[in-house]
């Protein structure tokens, strides 16, 4: 299972349970309002609580919540566990663009090109204020902090062009701080890497 | 509906306020702890550059003044107005001594080019910069509290003189005193953290 699938499963799990709960809460609420309206039920029963019920609806949500925590955590492990043979690329955020530095010192601005079928590890830092590297297609995001190196990784498993955005507010050009990720076949990548 | 003055209530309010003051410094102590963990050797190096004698003298001065403030409250309760006034004046004087010491201490540091954003700190080791940065922020904020405390004591002094603070109604003086103890208490933490570190 790829990390993307792991995260998506967690999304389905949590959103599914939530929708179910929301539907239940709303339906019961509306039913009560109609069923026990004053014209139909002029005298209310004097019920002040029910320990059994209260314990049940404390414990069951706790278990559900813990299971959600577990699903979320395991999918996070997937995002943090980098395969050993990953290609490492250094990334630096600056106001307002992304710089990518490859192992052979090739440097590009706002253009990240990686070969198909490889794991890619991005070592992220910032040259000025906080930024955050976000590639929605791979469900990854990490803050770029000056004086600190953070990382993310993804598995480049499908040819195509993907958006990279900055998600930590960094000033006037924040929303223009975009870059492109291109996943290309290995041969094309090697050719590109050698270009000036 | 309420009859008379609820001294306990006033004290609860004051304690809650003091609590918030401690948390205010608490935020800074959290910073201190985090940076101490990061730069232990520079903290001990910086600590040695501070003047322990002045620090110790200031500690004693504050402790004594705390005692005299407490004594002045007792004096008011015993209707010894003159004695209370004398003790209060002495306490405020102690505050002045503290600030004068602080002034000379800071002055000496400035003289050695150690102050926020100074050449020596900016181009020197970052750990030292953080140590002295925290030193200035924490002692500066504490100094501000000393001044506020002195103002409160002065107001109480005027009220004692005017006969507005009496043995049956001394909440103002008591709360000013509590505030002064807080100033003292915080210093008791600041002193070892900066002057006696390792």
């Amino acid at each position, binding site marked *: 299972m790829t990390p993307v699938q792991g*995260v998506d499963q*967690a*999304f389905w799990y*949590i959103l599914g349970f*939530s929708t179910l*709960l929301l539907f239940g*809460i*709303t339906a019961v609420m509306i039913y*009560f309002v109609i069923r*026990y309206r004053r014209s139909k*039920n*002029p005298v*209310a*029963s*004097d019920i*002040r609580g*029910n320990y059994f*019920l*209260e314990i049940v*609806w404390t414990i069951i*949500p706790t278990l559900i*919540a813990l299971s959600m*925590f577990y699903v*979320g955590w*395991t*999918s*996070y492990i997937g995002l943090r566990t980098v395969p050993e043979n990953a290609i490492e690329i250094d990334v630096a955020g600056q106001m307002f663009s992304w710089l990518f530095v490859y192992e052979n010192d090739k440097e590009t601005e706002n253009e990240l090109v990686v070969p198909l079928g490889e794991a890619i590890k991005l070592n992220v830092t910032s040259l*000025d*204020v*906080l930024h*955050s590297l*976000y590639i929605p*297609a791979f*469900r990854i995001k*990490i803050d770029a*902090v000056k*004086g*600190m190196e*953070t990382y993310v990784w993804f598995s480049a498993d499908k040819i195509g062009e993907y958006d990279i955005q900055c998600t*930590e507010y960094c*000033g*006037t050009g*924040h*929303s223009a701080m975009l870059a492109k990720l291109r996943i290309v076949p290995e041969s094309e990548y090697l050719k590109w890497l050698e270009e000036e | 509906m*309420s009859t008379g003055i609820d001294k*306990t*209530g006033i004290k609860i309010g004051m304690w809650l306020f003091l609590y918030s*003051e401690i948390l*205010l410094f608490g935020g800074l102590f959290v*910073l201190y702890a985090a*940076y101490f963990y*990061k730069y232990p050797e520079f903290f001990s190096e910086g600590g040695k550059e501070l003047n322990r004698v002045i620090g110790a003298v200031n500690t004693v001065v504050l402790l004594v003044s705390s005692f005299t403030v407490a004594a002045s409250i007792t004096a008011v309760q015993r209707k010894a107005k003159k004695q209370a006034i004398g003790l209060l004046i002495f306490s405020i004087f102690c505050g002045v001594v503290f600030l004068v010491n602080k002034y000379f201490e800071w002055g000496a540091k400035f003289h050695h080019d150690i102050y926020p*954003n100074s050449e020596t*700190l*900016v181009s020197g*080791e*970052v750990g030292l*910069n*953080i140590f002295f940065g925290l030193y*200035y922020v924490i002692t500066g904020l504490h100094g501000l509290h000393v001044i506020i405390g002195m103002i409160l004591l002065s107001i109480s002094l005027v009220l004692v003189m005017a006969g507005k603070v009496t043995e049956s109604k001394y909440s103002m003086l008591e709360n000013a005193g509590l505030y002064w103890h807080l100033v003292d208490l915080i210093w008791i933490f600041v002193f070892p953290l900066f002057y006696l570190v390792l």
Partner: protein
Amino acid sequence: MIKTESFYDTPAPAGLTGIKAWLLTHDHKRLALMYMWAILFWFVIAMMFGLLLRTELMSQGRTIMGPEVYNSLFTLHGVIMIFLFVIPAIPAIFGNFFLPIQLGTDDVFFPRLNLFSWYLFMFGGVFALISLFTGEGFPDTGWTFYVPFSVEANSNVSVTVMAAFILGMSSMLTGLNFITTFHRMRDKNMGLMQIPLFTWSLYATAWVQILATPVISITLVLVVVERLFSIGLFEPDKGGDPILYQHLFWMYSHPAVYIMILPGMGVISEIIPVFSRKSIFGYKAIVWSSMGIAVAGSLVWAHHMYTSGMSDVSVFVFSLLTFLVAIPSAVKVFSWIATMHKGSIEMTPPLLLALIFIYLFSVGGLTGLVLGAVGTDIHVHDTHFVVSHFHFVMFGGTGFAFFAALHFWWPKMFGIMYEFKNAYIGAVLTAIGFLFHYVPMFILGLQGMPRRYYDYLPKYETGNFLAGFGGYLLCLGILIMFGNLFMSFKRRIPAPSDPWGATTLEWTVPSPPPVHNFVKKPQIKEFPYDFSEVGKREKNGEKSRKIL
């Protein structure tokens, strides 16, 4: 009933006249009303800012403003909404007005301090205004004032930060006042488990205010100090750590979320039993969950920082704690719904607003689970998903609780009734507009549109257009709602002392209450939500109010 003079006719302290009777008053009720007008003013301003923002986003590229203006508008929208509306709204208005009455006393413990808090509040507001028109430009850092940007930005950040500092002081002193009042002024016959839930929730809130506000105060002071002296406590080149700032900031600002929502929950806990004519279900559970939220809510701050680069161990711990803090909120929702079971439910505008609250707050809470779980949060962190989530909680939650409280206590505060039909129209329209406005943002967020974006990729245009459209609908609904309330000043239909058939003490005094609140000694009930007498009264043919 004997005719009594309302607090409008009796200045406190006595002898004040004209405007002085308001500006120098120690009366908690007058102060509450003064807060109300100031807070409504700020609410409308910030709402207009929000509408301008969404209008800008309705189409791609520049629509009505440039990025600089956009950035300062969203900063101000956040600062004003949080510090001048959501945090003070319920405690400062309804807390000030009703906490003393619900406790059976004549005022808060420190009336003059209360007045001082109001002045601090106004002063903070003035500072916020000053920051707009002085210095080198509008503040544009976002309400979080993240370093290093907030230290480096050329705009007028210091004054805005000071405004937030002063407003923090004001809310903290109000909290201090409430705690002392709660302990020292409570009627002697009222035990802890006889206190109305609204007051309980304010008590829990007050503790969070006192515990958390100093931390934000010192953090904001540090931002100003850094701007003035460039010490470098958060500057990596000088040995500082910007992540520490975030820790300090959220150590306050997450508990602040509970400062915002707890009083709203208190309001709902009052309204649901009254219109179900049935005791609240699980009174003790609600009290304990309030206190539980206050405590646990202080331990989860770093769930705002999963992507900040902090250690995976911290991420694990904070995620786990976050899920545990969700439970008390769930318990409250279940209790409210169970309260309606076998009740005798009368539909009124406050109840409708409370039901909308339960729905919107549930959505907000449940989407919070997506954000609490680490793997999913990474994807939607700092996207429109988060924007939508916290608006569901803060606006759908606190905002609607505020509207509900206005409709619930309006007759008591002003002694007049408003029209029901327009109130329903306003409430429903607001709710529909709300959903149109914020649901598209959930989808935008899942698609990956970041927040605080002046412009966006073409694929996000439809969602943004819909959200903008919903925004207009939402504002129209609020306009109708407020318009209807204000019309009541013109129609002046007098409200009886207990128009709803409620049981807590504020409904035993005249509407509006006299200056010392109680005409005769308050009768403390064994249990605050005992409706048996209300039913009996009605049987004897005593109608509590005309149906409007």
